């Protein structure tokens, strides 16, 4: 139910007085309301839940977490790591 998926903002427009967008979820495009992310702009990635953007994805934070996790996985003594 609280499933929310990241998508990319492709088009921004107004409807019934609300700021709306076309959002691309890896090929599937759906409408979403941008009222809760007023700073959102074209090309931004946003988390959509029941047709509303609830959060903008922070690229720097994403890269930083991935770097930390890569460092952990390189440190861990994994006998199979040579395969990958």
């Amino acid at each position, binding site marked *: *139910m*609280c*499933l*929310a*998926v*990241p998508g*990319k903002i492709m088009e921004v427009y107004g409807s*019934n*007085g*609300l700021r709306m967008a076309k959002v691309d*979820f*890896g090929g599937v495009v*759906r*409408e*979403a*309301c941008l*009222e*809760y*992310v*007023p700073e959102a702009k074209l090309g931004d*990635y946003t*988390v959509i*839940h*029941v*047709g*509303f953007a*609830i*959060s903008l*994805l*922070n*690229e720097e*934070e*994403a890269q*930083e*977490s*991935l770097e930390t*996790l*890569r460092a*952990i*996985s*390189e*440190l*861990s*003594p*994994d006998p*199979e*790591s040579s395969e*990958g």
Partner: protein
Amino acid sequence: MKHVSEYRDARLVKGALEEIRRVVTKPWVVMEICGGQTHAIVRHGLDRLLPSEINLVHGPGCPVCVTPLEQIDRALAIASLPEVIFTSYGDMLRVPGSGADLFSVRASGGDVRVVYSPLDAIRIAQENPEKEVVFFAIGFETTAPANAMSVLQAEALGLRNFSVLVSQVCVPPAMRAILGSPDNRVQAFLAAGHVCAVMGYWEYGPIAEEYRVPIVVTGFEPLDLAQGILGAVRQLESGRFVAENAYPRAVTLEGNRTAQGVIRRVFMACDRKWRGIGLIPMSGWGLRPAFETFDAEKRFDVGQIQPEESPVCISGQILTGLKKPEHCPAFGTACTPEHPLGATMVSSEGACAAYYRYRHIVEPAAATQRSG
């Protein structure tokens, strides 16, 4: 898909699991709050990849599961009225009330429609001015901004034929109810990432401190979950009890202030009953008096609702982390996703439904066939 596929990288997940194995020295019970996380954990088999010291128990964070039976019975009664178009998120349609479900109301002629967003319900109300359009506004904090916006839109557009049947619940009071129970065995929480995307995680610091439990804001992909569990285990092993954020790409400490403002404008805190658990004081939201003209409970008189729950179901103990689905004698026999007896089997995100879907024990007949 960006922001998804990176977090399904098997090598990184393995690395995080190795790190958990390296850090853990004692047995710990960790609860993931959110049903979406339960589903992801069981689907990817993460709980089976963890060292045996870590016991993951599944929390009450499935709004479809915990919507109280009387509210479902009320929905069924309203949806059966001839003047009503009843709109709902798809997950609610097969949730059984005391007798029927919304699917069977539709089969007997009721106008029940699935909507993807509450704004779809608004559009239906605009297109059907001669009908009463009711939206079943269920959910946790994640869904509240959308549900609240539907009320503000109805007001702005002057829609007199739109109302909401509200069943909003909140995570922090449920955490306190679990931690305050004398039977509690939860030692750390993975907090629900998308609830925190809306609300932030400032509410969790005081809970972590008061009950001495680590609380780690966690996302939904396998790597997010492994990272959340690693954060919890590191705190447990070092005797720290703070709220930390393992989902920083989507969550900030303060959360979405704009959304919180709209929630506060439309809703106010109230007591809520949780299916399988019972009444938790001030654990949800109801409409503020200024919006009571949009309250379906006030608009439609459907008489006294007297719900009847199955006496066999142990979902209350499952939702509070005391038991797991396989401990229930009815699991997979008397209780299945087609004929659920209670909260945790009714929604695909419920713990029992997830276990049934991904781990269903081989039927005796099938087992005999295979051995023969």
